[in-house]
């Protein structure tokens, strides 16, 4: 028994580590928990005591468990006085000190777990991992940054009883609360009490509604939510909306940044939502492409804001976004203006909102998919709408492409062929068909590359996919080689590949107007290699005919040196809308061994011949009690309606 006493102390120390305490913390509710006797044996072995009798083990484990609990209870005191919610190793050290026990050293670092686990041969083993450390490595590593010193910062938590919405304060209504308010709006309210509603975020004194309770019984009412804006908020709203649709790009960027990050926008959300939906409705009729793009960027910014609970306003936002995807006409000159970029962008937004907001109850994704498919299947649908539907579907992911787009490639190919090779009906159709073709190739190639077995036979493709077959084949092959290259690179080196984002700076001489300078999303490659931007970029306003572009791009090879090539192309024709295209080997993850990259700036010829009469494809969204349902109905009726109006 002597050794038992002798062992006790070391056992307590030995069994004290993070995991033990976590174990006890978690189990505290249960009454009697003690360490298993196997642990005792293991620990005895670790200090060189061989056979320990079962009884001594049991006695020890009880004793050790009790002592550990005692220490944990003391440690809790230190935690409370340290004004923390988390028990730290320092608290345990202090608790040990209370008991005149030497504290444990080395547990301060955050990720310190002293022993590792290994098993094999039917034995489980815990061992101390003792790595050999090369001193020179330690000496040569650069010192970590000096932590910042403690500092004081003052802000107003409340001004005469009202909490200002500033970034230092939490959002007035946290997301959970917004959610509760929108998902469970029905509260039991006594008749006569509904006037009070719920005052958000703040309880206001007594409720003087006691005497009003008539014997009518309880009625479930939706409390009226109030969105009163202070003067400051009204000013802010005005500034933001003006900047978002104004002409100054710098201001717009700032405004969008504010929408995307500001925590106090909850009160303004209904206003923003109406602003966007009304804006889209008006500007679709007027074919004001620029404003539509701005509004979509606002939607994007709202979606990026982590403090907003958008679910309540989807009935306004989704129709607006869908309109921008599938509307027959979005701009005054469909042959010149790049409304395709807007459609792409809006499609990505749609996909993003499907991903974030779709649930089993609202079924956004399936309803959207149905809407798109339905109008795509219609023969009379215009190329523009067709393009939108396909883009919308394609952005929903490879599964959707596989099940919905691939089976229709043959049909679509025939349709394209009819336009491309048949008698020239209209230039607009041709452009449309061309865009649809490249869109299909872009999205399908990668999916086919994954699901189709290796030998890529041109003829086989033709039989499978019809007109688009051969082109698909070449795309798929390209995709395969790139994938292989990528894999090779990954295999060869384990260094993390830091990829400088390709920046595209378009400086414009001559006329003013803002050309895209944010992300290369309006960049499109005609029919060779297509790059997909990893995240929805922001389309920029198509500029009036410009004269000169200087395209600068960075390349990122395996080597860290960067080459720049400047190409300047001048566009003489004022009627043609130039499109900037980038072919780059340095697309995300596609780094090839080519040292140099070529940037081709091409202009697409197109003639203005479209004068299609379009009705606004956004139907007014009325305020309804079941917003989503209504909105979705509108969506569905919208596209087919638009397609029937087609003159073809």
């Amino acid at each position: 028994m002597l050794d038992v006493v002798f062992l006790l102390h070391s056992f307590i120390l030995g069994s004290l580590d993070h995991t033990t305490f976590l174990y006890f913390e978690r189990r505290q509710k249960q009454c009697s928990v003690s360490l298993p006797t196997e642990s005792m044996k293991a620990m005895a072995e670790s200090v060189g005591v061989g056979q320990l009798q079962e009884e001594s083990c049991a006695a020890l484990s009880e004793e050790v468990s009790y002592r550990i609990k005692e220490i944990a209870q003391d440690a809790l005191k230190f935690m409370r006085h340290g004004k923390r919610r988390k028990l730290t190793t320092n608290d345990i050290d202090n608790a040990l000190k209370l008991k005149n026990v030497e504290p444990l050293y080395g547990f301060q670092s955050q990720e310190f777990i002293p022993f590792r686990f290994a098993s094999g041969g039917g034995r489980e083993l815990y061992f101390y991992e003792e790595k050999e450390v090369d001193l020179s490595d330690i000496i040569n590593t650069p010192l970590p940054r000096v932590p910042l010193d403690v500092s004081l910062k003052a802000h107003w938590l409340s001004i005469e009883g009202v909490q200002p919405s500033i970034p230092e304060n939490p959002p007035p209504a946290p997301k959970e609360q917004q959610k509760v308010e929108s998902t469970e709006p029905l509260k039991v309210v006594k008749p006569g009490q509904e006037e009070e509603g719920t005052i958000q975020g703040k309880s206001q004194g007594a409720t003087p509604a006691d005497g009003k309770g008539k014997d009518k019984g309880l009625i479930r009412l939706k409390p009226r939510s109030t969105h009163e804006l202070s003067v400051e908020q009204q000013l802010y709203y005005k500034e933001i909306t003006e900047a978002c649709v104004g002409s100054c790009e710098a201001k717009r960027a700032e405004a969008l940044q504010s929408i995307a990050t500001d925590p106090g926008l909850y009160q303004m959300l209904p206003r923003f939502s109406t602003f966007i939906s009304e804006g889209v409705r008006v500007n679709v009729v007027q074919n004001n492409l620029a404003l539509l793009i701005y509004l979509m960027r606002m939607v994007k910014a709202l979606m990026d804001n982590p403090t907003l609970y958008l679910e309540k306003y989807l009935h306004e936002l989704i129709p607006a976004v869908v309109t921008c995807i599938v509307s027959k006409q979005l701009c005054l000159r469909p042959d010149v203006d790049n409304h395709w970029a807007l459609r792409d962008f809006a499609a990505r937004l749609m996909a993003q909102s499907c991903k974030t907001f779709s649930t089993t109850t609202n079924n956004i994704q399936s309803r959207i998919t149905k809407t798109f498919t339905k109008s795509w299947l219609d023969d009379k649908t215009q190329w523009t709408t067709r393009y939108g539907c396909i883009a919308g579907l394609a952005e929903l992911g490879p599964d959707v492409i596989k099940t919905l787009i691939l089976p229709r490639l043959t049909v679509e190919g025939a349709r394209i062929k009819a336009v491309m090779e048949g008698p020239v009906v209209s230039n607009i159709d041709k452009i449309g068909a061309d865009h649809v073709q490249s869109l299909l190739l872009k999205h399908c190639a990668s999916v086919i590359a994954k699901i189709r077995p290796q030998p890529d036979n041109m003829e086989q493709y033709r039989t499978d996919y019809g007109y688009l077959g051969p082109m698909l084949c070449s795309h798929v092959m390209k995709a395969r080689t790139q994938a292989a290259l990528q894999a090779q690179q990954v295999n060869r080196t384990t260094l993390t590949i830091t990829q400088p984002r390709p920046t595209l700076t378009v400086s414009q001489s001559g006329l003013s107007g803002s050309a895209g300078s944010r992300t290369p999303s309006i960049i499109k490659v005609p029919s060779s290699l297509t790059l997909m931007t990893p995240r929805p970029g922001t389309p920029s306003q198509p500029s009036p005919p410009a004269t000169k572009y200087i395209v600068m791009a960075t390349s990122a090879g395996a080597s860290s040196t960067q080459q720049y090539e400047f190409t300047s192309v001048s566009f003489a024709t004022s009627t043609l809308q130039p499109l900037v295209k980038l072919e780059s080997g340095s697309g995300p993850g596609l780094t090839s061994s080519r040292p140099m990259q070529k940037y081709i700036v091409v202009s697409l010829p197109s003639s203005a011949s479209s004068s299609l009469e379009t009705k606004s494809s956004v139907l007014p969204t009325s305020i309804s009690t079941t917003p989503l349902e209504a909105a979705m109905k509108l969506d569905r009726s919208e596209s087919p309606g638009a397609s029937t109006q087609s003159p073809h």
Partner: protein
Amino acid sequence: MAAVQGGLADTNEEKDIKTEPSSDGFGNNNANDGRVLSTSPGSSASAGINKSATGAPEDQQTLLAVLQFLRKNKLTESVEILRREAGLPEDSPELKGSDSSGAGSGGAAGSGDKEGGDASSLLSRVTISSSANLATTVTSSVTAAGEDQPDVNVVLSAYNQQGDPPLYQVYYSGLKKFIESVLDCHRAELSQLFYPLFVHMYLELVYNNHESEAKAFFEKFSGDQECYYEDDLRVLSSLSKREHMRGNETLMDFRTSKFVLRISRDSYQLLKRHLQERQNNQIWNIIQEHLYIDIFDGMPRSKGQIDAMSGSLAGEGKREANKAKVYYGLLKEPEIELPLDDEDEEAENEEGKPKKKKPKKDSMGSKSKKQDPNAPSQTRIPLPELKDSDKLDKIMYMKEATKRIRLGPDNLPSICFYSFLNAYQGLTAVDFTDDSSLIAGGFADSTVRVWSVTPKKLRKVKSAADLNLIDKESDDVLERIMDEKTASESKILYGHSGPVYGISFSPDRNYLLSSSEDGTVRLWSLQTFTCLVGYKGHNYPVWDTHFSPHGYYFVSGGHDRVARLWATDHYQPLRMFSGHLADVTCTRFHPNSNYVATGSSDRTIRLWDVLNGNCVRIFTGHKGPIHALAFSPNGKFLASGATDGRVLLWDIGHGLMIGELKGHTDTIYSLRFSRDGEILASGSMDNTVRLWDAMKAFDDLETDDFTAATGHVHLQDNSQELLLGTYMSKSTPVIHLHFTRRNLLLATGAYNP
């Protein structure tokens, strides 16, 4: 036979119970032994003879017992003879007698015998067989206890076995059944018995090594206990062996203090009749030995009333404990009226301002001239003389007071939040100076940091050599002694060797106190930014310290369960306030400096008289360790906040709970009344600051019919009406609050991203 006596015996025994509180756990122990002796056949002497056969150590003890017996009966010659025979030194009996456990000892032996006589009437009902059983167990427990530390021994020896272990469950469930069957009005009162009985029965089982029975007992009945005892039950559950009992603080608390219950006479009679009918001596013994039943005449209390007051480690405070007179009034403002006006005029003339504030000041002066009948006399405790600088500060204070905003439900204060950024080392304590110019933070990395929150930077005094060079006659000598080179916005004070848990500025802003895990309280000079004194006395972590509002004195409390009163110029404490059964977690001075309030982990608040060190109030009702205390500015009320997230309001004069403010969801670390006492602000771990209508809470009470005599409070649940505002911070626990002299609320906390 006692069972037959019925009503007559009742009154007798009530008296017993009432007299018993005078004897502490120690005397209690003797009483028990006395009873044991008297139940064994024959006289006490024969019992001693029986015992003398058990061996050498017992021999000694028996001898001592005999000696005492003789001395008590004034048989001095026999004492002398026996002592000579045994070879015992002259003065050893007292010492050893008090140490030894088995035999009766000290002056309490007499009362033990007397009580033994009364108790025998009860205990005579014990069957012969069990009493025979008893004799053997007594001796065995004595030998076993002999190995223990003496003090623990004394405490534990009362746990000798008096019944069959498996029967404990039967006893307990029998009582449970009875209490559940009584009338509703009595049930709530009698239910109070469950918890202490449960604890003591469990401990008896554990002490007597009936481990499995103890475990079964615990598992069966622990679920029935009130939820606020959960923490203690957790401690109990881990205690399953007799060896564990040694050195376990919680256990000692249960033993050294009697659990206090307040029960109406009717309910008590019911209980007693039941126990007598059932001959349930086991439970009766526990009630007599370990509980103190405070019997009152009148209506039994409701469940709500009981729940409001219970929850502390040792039951409710006794009614007598809160009867002492407390001078809660404020001290008369010191006689600075005349100099005040003079200086004020001077100051104003210097500044070239018109004298428009004068009439107001007069009114304030006249207010302070009135002597509050509840105030202590000015010289009750010696207070430091006011210095010129203090007077200047008072003038500043009054000036600011005239600009003070009157707060109320319609006029809420603005809150300025000072966030500590990058406080990775852990912010553990904060204090503001009264004029809100400095802020000090104590950190878990043992440092104390002082910031200036005004544009005025912190400067040190020049070194001694440099000071010699100054022209001491110049007018701005105070300015000249400062070293401009050291000016900075913050200063760090190094000295502690553990986390700094308490921090307090002196009223004159010259000193700063900090208390730490290392067991010391340090006094820092804010002129030189060095440590002046380290006060050593607490051997364990010092959780809190607070300067008296008049300076000079300060109080500290810590893990050693003692609060100490110090004066800055004494390195030893002036008073020790001991009585808490667990850590003293927070300390506060009354505005008149005559009293000190302490909150503790035993879930009680005690008010101590600085003059004589007596405990004058015990407030129970919190269900968790108390972490925040605040006196109202008029000195009449006390607010307390605990880990249970509730704020309780107390009337000091009557010793009553007068309000409960529910709303916080986590530990309350800070409480503060506005300068005029209209608003109570509470800051909590749940990242909120809440404002409460203190005026309304106190007014509502005054319209109530005061039930001071019984001490039974009817608390209405009006927290929601009293809550004026909730302000959420961004993941920043609020650990300190402070009202500026103009009633702007300052809050602080460390930002925890």
